[in-house]
Structures are given as structure tokens and as C-alpha cells.
């Protein structure tokens, strides 16, 4: 992007540098002189339709033609620069679209993906599943969240597992039965093992 910016400015500066402008002024004069020389190669000159001598065409008319030629060339140069700029913009646009597409995919994979995973995990927790452990890829942006979170869930899993085991061994009084029903909602690692 920066390269293109400077590239465009470099072509503008080059096209309108003192040396380039001087060369164009000389070329305009020369092309005008070519035209005059060629127009003399015709019998129309004898009929008085054209100047009889190259000198007759000097002065105002010649200056006008040279200015006109210079104007044409300046327009061509500006058109060239604009076309070149447009081309660069189109190329840059393509690069930008590719960049945006790529970064969208990146963000989806590295940020939105883990967030979706966390949401799914919370849903499972709400459903009482304490056996799940969250796992992220090495390149995931939120991967540092996993260890403390898993630690907390693991601690809950152990505590509730222990409570369930203790209640299984306790006498079947109404309070115990009520607690057992409450804890049945939770699925722990020790449930799987037993």
C-alpha cells in the first residue's frame, strides 16, 4: 500500500520534473515543425491554400499549435497516471479482499471458534456434566483460559463426586434422599468409574 502510494507520486514527480517538461516543450516544437514540413509537400501550396514558406508559419500560429500539442500531451500524461493509479487500486483492492477474507477465516478459527466451544461447555455444565474438560488448540487466542477453568471444574467434579459417594454410604433418611435427588443432576467422573 505504502509502496503503491509512493509509486504513484514518483510517476507524477517524474512526469512533471523540470527535465521532462523541457523535453516535452522541445518535442512539441519538433512535432509542430514536422507537421509544417509535411504539409508543404502538396500542390495546395501553389494554390495559396497553405503557407508558401516555413517562415510564414512562424509566430502566433506556430506557438498556438505547440501549446495545443503540449496540452494534448499533458492530458495524455495525466490520463496515463490516472489509468496507472486505477490499475494499482484494482490490484490493491484484490489484495485487500484476499486479506479481509483471510483475516475473517483466521478470526473465526482462532477467536470465534473457542468462544463457541466455551459456550457449548457452559451448556454442558448447566446440564450438570462435570466430566468435560475444555481443550483449545495451541494457536487459539483464548488457550490460556483453559487450565484455571479446568482446574475449577475438576475441583467441583471431585467435591460433588465425594459428596455423592458419602451420601451413598449414609443412612437413608429423608434429608439424605433429598440431597441424593439434588445431586443426581450432576454427572461426575467417579459416576463413570463406578
Amino acid at each position, binding site marked *: 500500500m505504502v509502496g503503491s502510494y509512493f509509486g504513484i507520486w514518483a510517476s507524477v514527480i517524474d512526469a512533471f520534473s523540470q527535465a521532462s517538461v523541457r523535453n516535452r516543450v522541445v518535442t512539441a516544437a519538433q*512535432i509542430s515543425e514536422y507537421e*509544417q*514540413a509535411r504539409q*508543404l509537400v502538396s500542390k495546395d501550396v501553389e494554390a495559396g491554400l497553405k503557407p508558401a514558406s516555413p517562415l510564414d508559419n512562424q509566430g502566433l500560429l506556430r506557438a498556438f499549435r505547440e501549446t495545443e500539442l503540449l496540452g494534448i500531451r499533458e492530458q495524455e500524461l495525466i490520463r496515463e497516471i490516472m489509468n496507472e493509479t486505477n490499475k494499482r487500486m484494482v490490484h490493491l483492492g484484490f489484495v485487500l479482499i484476499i486479506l479481509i477474507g483471510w483475516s475473517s477465516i483466521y478470526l473465526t478459527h482462532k477467536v470465534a471458534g473457542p468462544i463457541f466451544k466455551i459456550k457449548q461447555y457452559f451448556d454442558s455444565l448447566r446440564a450438570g456434566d462435570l466430566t468435560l474438560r475444555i481443550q483449545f488448540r495451541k494457536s487459539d487466542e483464548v488457550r490460556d483460559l483453559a487450565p484455571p477453568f479446568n482446574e475449577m471444574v475438576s475441583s467441583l467434579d471431585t467435591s460433588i463426586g465425594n459428596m455423592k459417594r458419602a451420601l451413598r454410604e449414609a443412612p437413608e433418611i429423608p434429608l439424605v434422599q433429598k440431597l441424593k435427588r439434588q445431586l443426581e443432576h450432576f454427572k461426575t467422573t467417579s459416576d463413570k468409574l463406578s
Partner: protein
Amino acid sequence: MTNRSCSIVLVACIFFVHSVSLTPSAFALSQRDFILLKKIQRDTFEYFLVHTDPETGLARDSSRPGAPVSIAATGFALASFAIASSHGWLSYREAYQKIEQTFNTLEHKTPKQKGFFYHFLDPKTAKRIWGSEVSSIDTALLIAGALLASSYFPGTSLPQRAQHLYEQTDWDWMRNNTLLFSHGWKPESGFLPFYWDMYSEHLILQALALGSRTHPVPRAVWSEWERVHDAYNGKEIVYAYTGSLFTYQFSHAFIDFRHLNDGGINYFDNSQKATIANREFCAAHADEYESYRNRVWGLSACLGPNGYKAYGAKPGNAYHDGTVALHAAIGSIVFTPEESISAIRTLYEYDGGRLYGPLGFKNAFNADRDWWTDDYLGVDQGMTFLMLENFLNDGAIWNRFMNLPQIKHWIERTALSE
């Protein structure tokens, strides 16, 4: 025999062959002149090596910085690459690649109108610049160069590609419903209001157009332009309005007019007389202009103290101010070998050799105005190179060009053959 002896014998043989070979006017060259002319031809060729764009293969109009490409100069460049390969100045492969590169650009990059090319192009992009016109004469010179160059590479794709460039040119369209060819056409304003209506360099345009089978023009086109006569020092000449020598030379670089008769006019003889008239005109004004002293002559379109002008001699407009075109005498070498070589020698040594540079003779000078240029013009370099080739190699270009079917067809249609 030692290597040295071998070399001496070889040089002697070459010299002998060139001394006795029939140059166009059967003029016997001295060894010294032969070496000088060969050097000028080699140095002149260098222009096309230096000033042809390496990417597009298009030749610049002049050596001046910022000069655009001229398609006529490109035609001369194509011819010069082919000829250079025949002399060993370029290898066959190098020349082929350079010509092929130019053909690629002409076929795919340059804008065209009815097969005609724009006069001036950007050297890098090959696009039209300076609002230039689609030019009839410059296209003709380009196509003549392409046809000539491709004839040096038989059995390759080049002849077919050159033929395609030729066949796609709609010569008939350039008449603008008249019997004369327009100078050109612009997309913004249509046909230019100038026509090739008198004798001038347009004979090459006539030849190619009348020889076309894909876009034929009426036979009457050949007789429509005026053959205006006038005399100078007792020489009756069909003249170009400006009296510039290049008008008597450009078509002759390709076409051998020696044996062509146009209702009693032989254009080779005509150019010969025009050259002598040009020389005599300069001599007649030697008291007025210092430039014309010491038998220096050559009034033709060239750069000058007041810019590019169509300098010329009688008969014609004869505008002159002491500016001598350095290519003028060389361009007439096939018509007036003795006079041209004498002028070339003088100009080569003029003022300590200041008129000669690394690319051959510079464009012009004017001693009266103390005006000297270091610039070279592509078309003048091309004409110098081709005319020297015809002169030094027994009409080598003429022999090839006159054998082209389109040229034979032109001669047949116009009944020019003796």
C-alpha cells in the same frame, strides 16, 4: 602462408571484388572510400541498437531525450537488423529475436486503424501519443521495412507475419473516396485535409497500395497525382514542392526505379538530376552562405537553428538558410556516387570531424549561424543505412524488394516495366 599474409590476401580480394563489382551506377570505389563508407554504415546502424526500446522493439524518432517512437523509424530499424545480420554485425538469432519482438508489439500492443499505424507511439507502452495521426506514409515505410526484413529470414514465421501486416492495411480506405491518399486520419477529426498530390516520398505508399490484393485501390490512383515539371540549370525535373532531397530518396531506398518507365519519366534519373541540381544550387549560393563553401552541399528536411525545416533547392520552394543536412549527400549516393563521396569525405573531415559522432553523421549543421547539433533522426539514419547497403552491396535491398509479389503486381498494374 602466415595468418598475416592470409589477411592481406583476403582484404585485397574483398577490395578487388568491391572495386570491380557493379555498384548501382557501376562506380569504382577506392579502398579508402570503401572502408570509410563501411564504417559510416556500421556506425549508422548503431543508432537502431541504441535507440530501439528493449521491451517493445520500437525505434525512437530521434536521439533526443524524451523523443517518441516513430513507426517509420521502426520500419528502418527492422530492415537494418536484418541487413546487419547479413554482415555479421548481429547474429542471425539476435536479429531474428529483435525483429520478432517488434512484430509482437506491432501485432498485439500498438493501436491501429484499418491496419494503419499511428505516427508517434510511447516507447514503453506502444500506445499512441502526442495526439498523433494514423499516418499513411509512415505506415508504408514501416510495412516496407517489415517486408524487407522478413525476406532475410525465409522459412521462418516472419515472412508470413509481415505479409499479414501488409494484407490487413486497408489502403483503399486511406483515399477517403478520392483518387489521392490522405496524409492521415485522426479519431477526433477524421481525415487530415492534406493529400499526396505531387511527386514526393509517397511513391512507396503508391507501390504498396497498388500492389495490394486484399485491399486494392483503383489503377487511376497512380495517374491522379501531378507530375509537375520545372527546370534548374537546364535539368528538367519532376519536382517535390519543397525541393528537399529526401523526397527524391526515401522510396528509392526500397524500390529500384532504374528500369521503370512512367510515361517517359524515369524516377531514378529524375532523382539523379534533382541531386545534381541540389549540389549546383548550393554552389550557386556559396558566396552567400559559408556552409556551402568547399563543395559542401545537401539541402533536405532536417534540424536547423530554427527547428526542423523542409530545406530544399530548386526546382521547388527552395527554402534554405545555410543549414546542410548531413544525410542528404549519402542518401543520393546511388544516384551520384562521385559527387556524394566527395561530399562525404569533406563532411567527415569538416572542422576536425565535429560533424561525425558515435552513431555516424549527426543530423545537420549551419556554419553561418554557428549552429551544430549532436542529434540524430531515426528516418535519416535509416535512409543513410539502406542507401549505403544498396551502393556497397550491388543493390542488395533493391534485388530483394523488387522480387516481392506486391511490388511486381504494382509494376504490372501501372505498366511501369520497360
